[in-house]
């Protein structure tokens, strides 16, 4: 049953206007990224590569938030959720199926973005290396974590508020990476509260390897595995929270 829901969600997400429009926007932005390289007065290759790798994350997260927040709410608003739940489907089947379908669609989107981005870089003469593929894969994990975040926030609030909260989580998730260097500003219980709050947010700075990959700097297999595991753990946590909230919800 999970597979059926996942398959239907994948088709729905992949056909959604927001998904396709943002992929189109990514393609346009990648083409335009060369302009930034040109106005830098250098050969622009590294700068364009930085832009392309960052765009994959930014647009990817926008896709995840746009499709993730609409996923369950659309089912509720269009009352198709009742048709599904009237069958022998448990609510956790529904949530996990929905997430897996969305994750599959996002992973396909990310692969397409990565292929397009690296292809464009190679065509325009910018250096492309294998580490950039790995960096793209880590960005995909980041996007999947954000998809789980969006699903979780949607179960707790309205779609609009969930979108805002998702983007805030993205910003804070990256900011917590720099927090240890700013801790000296805080004293006593302020520092304790800050650390506790920071521990409750996924540390997305673990997926910033793209900047090193552009320079061809390697990452160890242990490091990569640890980051993957960290992402999977957060996804599991957030999906479980979503299941728990949806179980108690009066539909």
């Amino acid at each position, binding site marked *: 049953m999970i597979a059926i829901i996942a398959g239907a969600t994948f088709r729905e997400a992949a056909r959604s206007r927001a998904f396709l429009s943002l992929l189109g926007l990514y393609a346009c932005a990648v083409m335009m990224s060369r302009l*930034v390289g*040109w*106005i*830098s*007065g*250098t*050969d622009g290759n*590294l*700068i364009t590569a*930085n*832009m392309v*790798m*960052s765009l994959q*994350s*930014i647009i990817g997260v926008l896709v995840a938030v746009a499709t993730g927040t609409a996923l369950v709410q659309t089912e509720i608003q269009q009352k198709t959720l009742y048709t599904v739940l009237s069958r022998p489907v448990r609510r956790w089947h529904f949530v996990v199926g929905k997430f897996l379908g969305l994750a599959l669609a996002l992973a396909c989107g990310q692969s397409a973005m990565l292929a397009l981005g690296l292809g464009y870089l190679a065509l325009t003469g910018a250096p492309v290396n294998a580490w950039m593929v790995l960096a793209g894969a880590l960005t995909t994990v980041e996007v999947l974590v954000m998809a789980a975040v969006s699903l979780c926030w949607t179960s707790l609030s309205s779609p609009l508020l969930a979108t805002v909260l998702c983007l805030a989580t*993205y*910003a804070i*998730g*990256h*900011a917590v*990476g*720099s*927090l240890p*260097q*700013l801790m000296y500003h805080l004293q006593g219980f302020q520092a304790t509260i800050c650390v506790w709050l920071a521990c409750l947010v996924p540390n*997305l*700075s673990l*997926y*910033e390897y*793209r*900047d*090193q990959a*552009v*320079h061809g*700097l390697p990452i160890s297999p242990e490091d990569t595995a640890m980051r993957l595991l960290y992402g999977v753990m957060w996804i599991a946590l957030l999906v479980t929270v979503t299941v728990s909230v949806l179980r108690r919800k009066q539909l």
Partner: protein
Amino acid sequence: MPCWPIILALLATAAWWNSQRFGERAMVPRTKDLSFLPSPVMARMLSMGHPAAAAKLRWIDSFAYFELQLDRHDDTLAGTGESGFRRLYDMLIDLDPHFELFYQHAAFNTGALENRHDIALGYLMRGTIEMPRSTALWRQAAAELHTNYQWEERQPASMEAFLDQWEAAESTYNEKRQVWDWKTAMARRQYRGLDQIGYWQDQLASSTPGSPTADYIEHTMRDQLARFAVTELQALVDAYRSRHGIPPLLLADALEPESVAARYPAGPPPWGPVTIDAGRLALRSDPFGFDLTLRDGTVTSPGLERSRAEHRMYHLSSQLAEAAKRDGRWAETLDEARKAGIEFAELPGGGAYRIVEHAVTIDWQPPPRPAWRLRPQNGGAPRK
């Protein structure tokens, strides 16, 4: 009635309106203050997971600050009194410590514009620690040590040690060979004044032809080459005077085979003012395309004179702006500017001041010959 004619008409109007901003008359140099820049840690936090991309965009935006400092030469920030360039490059380097150009520009801006060569060297050393295989940074650091610290003369052992470190950091034969060349040159350096030309040639090769950076680099190179030409010819004129008791009547007279052979045992240097044409010693034009001249026993380069006058011109524009601020109106003519207290120094031959768009410009007559071609094609010397 169909809507598309209205849409087309409005679109054409909007495009025309926008195009007015790009007209030549309306183009003004963009200048910018950097007082708002955050600390490196805060900048990383604000970059929201894209520090390298944010650093590049911030860097491109800061070119306007560079333009401002070319004229002002004072980058003290309001409030803290910090150096703007240092705050900028500390932030950029922290955001992307593996981007070579940040170190190069940091060293250039703090060294050449602020005249803080200690800070410039610090940036370069930091770069060699972050990127030990970066030949360009090692080379620039060596040039800095040689040019501004005179380590070859004052600390030859330390310079040797530095070159040894550079050599150890290079991984290929060709890269190591550059260091050996430097060591060889250090041992028998004979043409003073051109030590930086190799560095500038590298910078020129990596810049986009026709860009402001390329123009700036070319101008710097012409300036250095012209100074070198003047120094070399003056030495030949002095040799002529000591030999004959009187200065030469014409500059070409100073090219006596004995004096030239004594000064250049291995033949005239490729970047120098003396060349061999059809088996005879001949004078080249200065790097700007003007004939070098001899006046009362002193050699002058008209191109260099013009270059100096243009440097003064930027200062005059600043004075014009200050006068406008003080008097509440812009001087439109040279007479009005003089009345406002601005002194216009006499220009070298063929130049005339003009005030255009609230800035002083100089109209020059074109040089009689083409300027030297400096962009390396086969890594060779400029063509005649």
